[in-house]
C-alpha cells in the first residue's frame, strides 16, 4: 500500500467504525426497550389470565 493510501484507508476506517458503533449503540437501546415491552406484555397476559380464572371461580360459587 502506498504512503498516501494508508492515510485514506485510516480516515475512512475511523469514519465507518465510529458511525457503526453509534448505530449499534442506538440499536442496543431499541432492543432493550423491545425486551421490556415483551416482559410487560407477558405480565399483562398473566394478569388477564388470573382475572378470568377468579371470575370463573366466582361464577361457580
Amino acid at each position: 500500500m502506498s504512503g498516501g493510501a494508508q492515510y485514506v484507508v485510516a480516515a475512512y476506517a475511523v469514519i465507518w467504525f465510529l458511525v457503526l458503533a453509534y448505530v449499534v449503540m442506538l440499536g442496543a437501546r431499541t432492543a432493550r426497550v423491545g425486551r421490556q415491552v415483551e416482559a410487560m406484555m407477558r405480565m399483562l397476559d398473566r394478569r388477564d389470565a388470573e382475572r378470568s380464572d377468579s371470575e370463573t371461580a366466582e361464577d361457580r360459587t
Partner: protein
Amino acid sequence: MTDGPARVPGQRAAAIWGVLATVLVVVSSIGVFLVAPEDADQGIIQRIFYFHVAIAIASLVAFAVACVAGILQLRTRDERWDDVGEASIRIGLLFSVLVVITGSIWAKASWGTWWVWTDPRLVTYLIVVLIYAAYFVLRSSVEDDRRMRYSAIYAIAGFASVPLSFYSVRVAESFVHPVVFTSSGANMPGSMLWWFVVSQAAMICLFVALLELDLLGRRSERALRRLAMRLESA
C-alpha cells in the same frame, strides 16, 4: 391474549431514511474511490476531502437543527423539541469528532503534522467541538424543566460559534487550511464536485436517519415508562 406492541410513531420514517442513507453512502463510496478523478496535486490523499468536508457541513447542519429546536422548545415548552435538540447535538458532536480525526490524518499526510495550532480553521472548529461537548455537562448538572430550558438557551447561544468557525478561514490572512468553496464558486473540476454533492447528500441523509433512530428510541422509552406507570396504578 393481548395485542402485539403498538407501532411507535416514526418507525417508518426511520426505516426510509436509514435505507436512503445506506444507498447514498454505498453509491458515494463507489464514486469517490472508483469513479472520481485523482487530484493532480495531492494524489490519493485528496479522496479524504469528499467525506471530511461533507461530514463537517453535516455537523454544522446538526447544530443548526439543535438551535431551531431550542427556539421551538422555549416557545412551546414541548419536551419533544428538547429530544430533537439533544439528539442533534449528540450526532453533531459525533460528526465533529470524525471531522477532527479525519482532518488530522489528512494534515499528517499532506502537511507532515497532525495539528497546526496557528491555523484559525482548525482552532475555531476545535472550540466549536468543546462548546458542544460542554452542552452535555450542563444537561447532567440540572434537572427536569430547568434542564430543558437551560439546554435550549445553550443550544441557541452555542450556535453563535458556528459562523465563527465558518468565516474564520475566510477573514484570516495567513492559513494552511485550503478554502475550496468561495464566493466565486467551487475550486474543483465538475467531476469532483459531482461526487462531493453525492457525498454531502449521503451525510445529510445519515444525519437524518441517525436522528430519526435516536428519536424513535426516546419515544419508545417514554411510551414504555407511561405503560409501566399505568400498570402499577391499575
